[in-house]
């Protein structure tokens, strides 16, 4: 979230699309309701009438996977009716940038496209993004036309791109009536008025598509056009679904990142200098903060946290000790299970996760697990992953995989922090001790790596050597030393106190230390003290910080995440600046300098976020002073009180190289403007907007377990997955609980009365749902919440299945995972699977 949960109350219009917040993030509705009490409008757009819809002022349905068409129509409406916020759009976005002549868009394809070759990876095609670059002046600064009239400026190209998204065409694609479309467009675009704020709450309903990233980008464009970024009650708000999925992302439990959103290094970046040069953007515009220019400071400080004293300038701070990805390689979830299925992966950790039910195309995942040599499964409960060898249809006598199942402690049995969707880092304390012989994950990790280090240590104790020799043949395999032991032996691994994992020690390392006595801006900092914030991190090895965005979270002033002060800030918009801590620097609303006009005056004087309160003389600012939230940089505003430009003023979008919000986004895999394409599996034979049916860069795999069926009479209905309030994710933490199981006992398929009548299905009877990949038995739930869609000249039915079930719990073994149906194909930017729109059949048993 660019904003945070409490801030929802400040909104004038809340669009909930791609999320069912009332069901899946129920407490968020405390603030949605508060906003509505103050006059805000709530709009719910969802294929199904949900709990969220039941609370909305406006509800309308769309067919799964057609959100870009729906929102592209809104962009056209905003532009046609001049409803965009002109000052904001001109001053703070790249609408005025001139795009190079190589950019074209014809027949559904952007310039620079090359179709993928069979057998050369899962990408169906790729673009040469250099074709989409901006025109720049001699200093490398993008050329602009702030009148927005140049036919090659972003604004005009955008207008042209969305001209095709007429209400008629959009309605044909989405199945939403033109009247409903216009009602939503009119209501939401009213937030373009200066001083008004609109917000979007989305979740997996947007990410889980072959065009997921571009769905979100379409909304980002709308938010920029309406001036809704950086303001209270605005922003782009991803409602994250796991208590610490924000933190686990920040700390890069993802192949393509290093902690703090640094890039994962590639094989061609053979030195630290090459790596830093590649990822450090340069801007010669004095008005651009270009925050990522600090990249080397964060990379070196992170390496110092990894390797401590062993990381030196001479050895590139240990850069070569860390693994590199091939430049064109991908190592994502899809790729793991594809490689595992092809027997290329021998060992696997499933740590606090249940892939046998959670990933798409679970059938492929489960078969892949059978091809492993060993599996380590760490969890609270036995699950479908750890027990895959005794799952439905599996003969244990034919499964070679060795499985280790380790019992983890529940969160209340240990101490540590998590970070919520609004980036609030909060500390949790230990209540009871871990049950039985279960252990906190931290202790398991520490102890395991201690043992690994021991095996690699050449000077191991004599007693161990003797023990190993007795094992005869095995002693060879497990002899001391080993291949490339440097990173293992040099890893800083001092996070224990009295033999137990100490989260405070790790939290301090994540924040970072001064490693020498350092003087910064005439102030001295002693070696061994905690760095106050990331503006003090250095690229010379004199500081450490495991994850730079957390630098400021645990300082000499204490553990910021543990704060509990319930006093609000003077602007009284629910920032609660001394309750917990938010990254970065305790900033509660990102890009908050955009909440003010260029002179530093808030667009909304009542719900202001930050306010420039410097002194002025003769119409010019003379000193800097800020009030309210932590501003996105303490520099002067762009203009003086008399309206003259300040050369030392800074643009608000500080993480972008040029400092402007990106209406045109030349960095994505599938184009600088979002374009509607049909889902990989869809019920229509044509794309009403172009000859290009599916995202031309979608990621599609090709084993015998990857079959897809589009416009196939065997699978005539659109399927989608969703969640219910009483269960969580694969259900592993909720299915073993009696109270919650009583509330939601079994797998179901929800369908319209019309579809039930068509198939002769009665509410409550067991039916079979099948796709090109698998089948699942479900209890039919016939409701008025789904209605057939009129798409083109035909009728399209849609059904929904919750993905909380699996054979291990409940004991009946009869309730299975919805992901047996879903495809392992997805978005080219994120490789997130398309589990929100695929084709199924529903039949009586």
């Amino acid at each position, binding site marked *: 979230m660019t904003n945070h*949960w409490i801030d929802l109350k400040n909104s004038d219009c809340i669009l909930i699309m791609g999320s069912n917040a009332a069901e899946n993030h*129920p407490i968020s509705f405390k603030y949605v309701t508060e906003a509505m009490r103050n006059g805000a409008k709530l709009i719910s757009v969802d294929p199904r009438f949900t709990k969220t819809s039941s609370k909305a002022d406006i509800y309308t349905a769309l067919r799964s996977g057609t959100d870009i068409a729906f929102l592209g129509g809104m962009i056209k409406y905003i532009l046609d009716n001049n409803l965009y916020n002109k000052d904001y759009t001109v001053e703070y976005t790249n609408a005025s940038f001139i795009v190079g002549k190589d950019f074209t868009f014809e027949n559904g394809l952007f310039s620079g496209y090359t179709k993928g070759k069979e057998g050369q990876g899962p990408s169906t095609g790729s673009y040469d993004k250099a074709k989409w670059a901006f025109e720049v002046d001699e200093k490398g600064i993008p050329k602009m036309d702030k009148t927005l009239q140049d036919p090659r400026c972003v604004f005009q190209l955008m207008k042209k791109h969305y001209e095709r998204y007429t209400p008629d065409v959009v309605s044909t694609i989405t199945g939403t009536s033109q009247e409903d479309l216009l009602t939503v467009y009119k209501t939401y675009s009213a937030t373009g008025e200066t001083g008004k704020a609109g917000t979007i709450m989305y979740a997996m309903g947007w990410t889980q598509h072959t065009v997921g990233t571009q769905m979100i980008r379409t909304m980002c464009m709308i938010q920029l056009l309406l001036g809704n970024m950086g303001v209270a009650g605005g922003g782009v708000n991803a409602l994250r*679904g*796991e*208590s*610490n999925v924000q933190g*686990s992302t920040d700390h*890069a*439990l993802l192949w393509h990142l290093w902690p703090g959103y640094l890039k994962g290094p590639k*094989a061609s970046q*053979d030195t630290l200098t090459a790596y830093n040069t590649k990822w450090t953007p340069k801007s010669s515009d004095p008005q651009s903060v270009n925050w990522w220019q600090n990249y080397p400071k964060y990379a070196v400080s992170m390496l110092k946290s990894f390797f401590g004293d062993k990381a030196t300038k001479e050895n590139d701070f240990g850069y*070569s000790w860390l693994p590199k*990805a*091939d430049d064109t390689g991908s190592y994502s979830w899809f790729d*793991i299970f594809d490689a595992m299925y092809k027997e290329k992966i*021998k*060992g*696997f*950790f499933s740590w*606090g*996760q249940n*892939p046998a039910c*959670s990933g798409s195309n679970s059938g492929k995942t489960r078969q892949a697990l059978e091809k492993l040599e060993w599996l380590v499964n*760490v969890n*609270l*409960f036995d699950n479908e992953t750890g027990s895959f060898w005794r799952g439905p249809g599996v003969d244990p006598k034919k499964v070679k995989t*060795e499985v280790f*199942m*380790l019992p983890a402690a*529940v*969160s*209340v*049995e240990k101490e*540590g922090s*998590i970070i919520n969707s609004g980036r609030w880092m909060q500390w*949790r*304390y*230990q*209540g009871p001790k871990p*049950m*039985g012989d*279960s252990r906190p994950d931290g202790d398991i990790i520490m102890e395991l*790596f201690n043992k690994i280090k*021991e*095996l690699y240590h050449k000077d191991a104790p004599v007693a161990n050597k003797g023990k190993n020799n007795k094992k005869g043949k095995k002693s060879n*395999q*497990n002899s001391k030393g080993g*291949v490339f032991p440097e990173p293992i032996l040099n*890893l800083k691994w001092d996070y224990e106190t009295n033999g137990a994992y100490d*989260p405070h020690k790790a*939290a301090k*390392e994540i924040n970072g230390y001064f490693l020498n006595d350092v003087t910064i801006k005439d102030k001295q900092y002693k070696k061994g003290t905690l760095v106050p914030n990331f503006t003090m991190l250095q690229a010379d090895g004199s500081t450490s910080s495991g*994850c730079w965005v957390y630098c400021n979270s645990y300082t000499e002033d204490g553990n910021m995440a543990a704060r509990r002060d319930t006093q609000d800030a003077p602007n009284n918009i*629910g920032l*609660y600046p001394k309750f917990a801590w938010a990254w970065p620097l305790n900033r509660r609303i990102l890009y908050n300098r955009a909440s003010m006009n260029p002179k530093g005056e808030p667009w909304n004087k009542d719900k202001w976020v930050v306010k420039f309160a410097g002194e002025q003389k003769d119409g010019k600012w003379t000193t800097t002073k800020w009030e309210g939230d932590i501003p996105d940089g303490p520099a002067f505003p762009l203009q003086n009180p008399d309206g003259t430009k300040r050369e030392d003023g800074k643009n608000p979008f500080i993480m972008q190289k040029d400092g402007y919000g990106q209406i045109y986004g030349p960095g994505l895999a599938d184009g600088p403007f979002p374009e509607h394409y049909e889902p990989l599996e869809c019920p229509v034979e044509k794309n009403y907007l172009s000859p290009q049916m599916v995202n031309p860069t979608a990621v599609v795999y090709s084993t015998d377990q990857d079959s897809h069926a589009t416009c196939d009479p065997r699978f005539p209905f659109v399927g989608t997955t969703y969640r219910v309030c009483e269960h969580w994710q694969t259900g592993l*933490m909720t299915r073993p609980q*009696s109270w*919650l199981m009583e509330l939601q006992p079994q797998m179901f398929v929800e369908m319209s009365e019309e579809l039930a009548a068509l198939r002769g299905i009665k509410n409550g009877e067991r039916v079979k749902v099948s796709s090109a990949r698998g089948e699942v038995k479900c209890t039919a739930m016939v409701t008025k919440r789904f209605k057939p869609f009129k798409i083109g000249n035909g009728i399209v039915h849609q059904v929904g299945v919750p993905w909380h079930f699996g054979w291990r719990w409940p004991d009946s073994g009869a309730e299975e995972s919805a992901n047996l149906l879903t495809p392992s194909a997805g978005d080219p930017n994120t490789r*997130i*699977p398309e589990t929100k729109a695929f084709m199924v059949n529903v039949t009586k048993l």
Partner: protein
Amino acid sequence: MDLNRREFIQVTSATAAGLAVSTLGFDLMPVKAHAQMLKTKYAKETTTICCYCAVGCGAIVHTSQRGDGRVINIEGDPDHVINRGALCPKGGSMKQLVENENRLTRPMYRAPFSDEWQAVSWDWALEHIAQKIKATRDATFETKNSKGQVVNRTTAIASVGSAAMDNEECWTYQAMLRALGLVYIEHQARI
């Protein structure tokens, strides 16, 4: 005894008015007093943040300081600025997650082609896992890729997880995985 609502109110009012034994046939007062004592006298009170979705609601955990030292109750934290004491059905059931007879409480091992689990010690399990990791890593380690570029990695070991771990554990876990040379590092954020 059948009581309609009106009669029930009359009966309980009578109890409140001071009758030691009500017309219900038993006395509600001592039960109520005991319930209050459980929290205030025997329990340790700690705060936590809900382990399910990412709203970040606060909760209070009461842990017995006598007997088994287990959780007595978990409820919404009224002093938490986000949820102000409210919890959804999952958060409100957190006690059943912790105090659950279905939980794994000791390490288990399944041998190749076996049809059963066997209980093992932590030391045995971690020792054997460490040996597996080393054997696989050493046998598959690539110092250079097919183009001759230095990569120092193994693609024969993969990891998924976990958004259910604390920040500190996430950082520590990824440090271990990257030191081992893994590039296949993924978790819930990808799905």
